[in-house]
């Protein structure tokens, strides 16, 4: 039987009906992980994954009620903790760190019957948009070895694109799920901030960090989000608002839906070679009964610096826990201060150090009001305006990226040019709303181009319905 590119639904059906064993399926993915090892998408295959798969097979043979994701083999980003396994955030400082407990999302997925096969490559501590900041080497694009996979969840996106798994977990602070999803031609959902517990996710910028899912179909990511979403007493930023039944909300109809596009974004899109791809999607939606209107967001161009001010400030505080004493590796001798300095200087990567330095700059007493407080105020203004647009419209359409995946090494020496790549994804984290990226075409280099669909807080169901309709309908 051909096990290539199965959907989550199909996997569960095959496992339940015992047509395919979980061990057989896991071995299929392990073969692909090995086949594409030069992509550097997977940092480690967990040595007990076939043992777990065998346990699932026994459970199936025993009969009785089976959990919703029984036998689905998945991969997880290297910043999500799975008890007893190495979790390094692609950093030298945590190279030998073993998770003391499992993240809430991991426990929920294990309870739902998944097999966690391994951990995927990423930018160190999720700081980056190309997966070139990994201490263990860059992850290459699924479709072109000379191009970036995107980041920070590059490994998860490439793994899904090349069938090393059907679905993978990622995290998204400023686009880290959606941007690599776009660059590799897969689907990536970043849920509403507070929809999925962050307990057990290594922090980068805590007020923006979210865990989400990458997969090949809208149903796949919706099914997994269904399992991991919800209130968690371990994370007080999670919300108790009910989790919708996502699959039942995919109606196969977009007639009468209101779609907004942002004038300032549209002006940027029109300067690129990709405008026709987005226009095709908009025309398709209009043809099928959706109403498209243009709205203005003059603050749009200020969102990128706002994001970086907040993210770097929070990053510098979060990174202060790496002291070489409580966990992770240690270097240096002598005084306490010398151990701090030597450990951090030797074991943290360039981009992480840059963000720590800038975070300390914007938080310093002299500049705190000028940068940090101002950025929080702008974030607040943008949140209010976007929320208003989403009160009047069901969804907003935006490109996910400024174009196709760029060449490896082409932006590493110029951090600002790298940050500008995030211009379409960071506003969503600032506002806290959910957004998906779906592949809608190919650019002039033959590489995938993604569309972002966002909706109001906790309205993931609207996004899934629209995304599914477009993904199935647009050629």
């Amino acid at each position, binding site marked *: 039987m051909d096990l290539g590119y199965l959907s989550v639904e199909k996997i569960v059906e095959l496992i339940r009906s015992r047509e395919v064993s979980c061990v057989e399926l896991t071995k299929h993915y392990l073969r692909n992980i090995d086949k594409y090892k030069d992509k550097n998408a997977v940092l480690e295959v967990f040595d007990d994954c076939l043992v777990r798969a065998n346990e699932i097979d026994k459970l199936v043979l025993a009969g009785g009620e089976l959990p919703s994701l029984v036998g689905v083999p998945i991969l997880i980003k290297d910043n999500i903790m799975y008890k007893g396994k190495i979790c390094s955030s692609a950093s030298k400082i945590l190279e030998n760190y073993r998770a003391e407990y499992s993240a809430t999302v991991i426990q929920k997925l294990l309870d739902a019957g998944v097999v966690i096969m391994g951990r995927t490559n990423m930018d160190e501590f999720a700081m980056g948009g190309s997966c070139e900041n990994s201490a263990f080497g860059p992850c290459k694009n699924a479709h072109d070895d000379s191009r970036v996979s995107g980041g920070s969840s590059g490994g998860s996106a490439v793994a899904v694109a090349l069938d090393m798994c059907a679905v993978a977990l990622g995290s998204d602070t400023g686009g880290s799920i959606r941007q690599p999803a776009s660059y590799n031609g897969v689907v990536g959902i970043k849920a509403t901030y507070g929809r999925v517990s962050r307990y057990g996710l290594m922090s980068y910028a805590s007020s923006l960090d979210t865990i989400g899912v990458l997969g090949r179909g809208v149903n796949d990511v919706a099914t997994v989000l269904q399992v991991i979403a919800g209130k968690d007493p371990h994370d007080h930023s999670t919300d108790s608002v009910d989790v919708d039944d996502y699959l039942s909300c995919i109606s196969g109809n977009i007639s009468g839906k209101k779609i907004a596009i942002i004038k300032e974004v549209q002006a940027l899109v029109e300067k690129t070679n990709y405008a026709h791809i987005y226009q095709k999607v908009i025309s398709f939606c209009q043809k099928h009964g959706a109403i498209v209107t243009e709205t203005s967001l003059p603050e749009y161009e200020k969102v990128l610096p706002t994001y970086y*001010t907040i993210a770097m400030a929070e990053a510098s505080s979060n990174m202060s826990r790496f002291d070489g004493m409580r966990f992770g590796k240690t270097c240096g001798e002598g005084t306490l201060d010398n151990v701090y300095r030597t450990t951090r200087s030797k074991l943290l990567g360039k981009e992480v150090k840059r963000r720590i330095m800038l975070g*300390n700059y914007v938080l310093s007493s002299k500049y705190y009001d000028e940068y940090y407080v101002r950025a929080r105020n*702008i974030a607040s203004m943008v*949140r209010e305006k976007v929320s208003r647009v989403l009160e009047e419209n069901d969804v907003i359409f935006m490109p996910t990226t400024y174009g196709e995946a760029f060449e490896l090494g082409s932006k590493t020496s110029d951090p600002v040019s790298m940050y500008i790549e995030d211009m379409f994804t960071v506003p969503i984290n600032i506002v806290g709303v959910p957004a998906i990226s779906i592949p809608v075409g190919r650019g002039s280099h033959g590489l995938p181009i993604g569309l972002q669909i966002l909706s109001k807080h906790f309205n993931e169901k609207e996004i899934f319905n629209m995304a599914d309709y477009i993904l199935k309908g647009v050629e």
Partner: protein
Amino acid sequence: MEKENITIETIEKLADLSRLDFSMEEKEKLTIEVSGIIEMLDKCAEVETSGVSSLSCNMVEDLREDVVGKSLSQEDAFLNAPISKNGYYGVPRVVE
């Protein structure tokens, strides 16, 4: 607000606050990079924000009851400590 240029001294001050050491070559490179990034962040200064409250951040205030729950065992908590002994982390001598 009057802003000072980013100099090697600024980088040294920030490195000290950040508990990071850099070579002179790295500091020179950082001076240029940090200046460029700050220039990008300065675009925020063009936005009029007086009268705006930043209280509506992403955080929801939904605290759980203050009851004792399960937590990590001491053994688990020390699993990753480079040095630990008798339930304490091992650190360099701080009191002479």
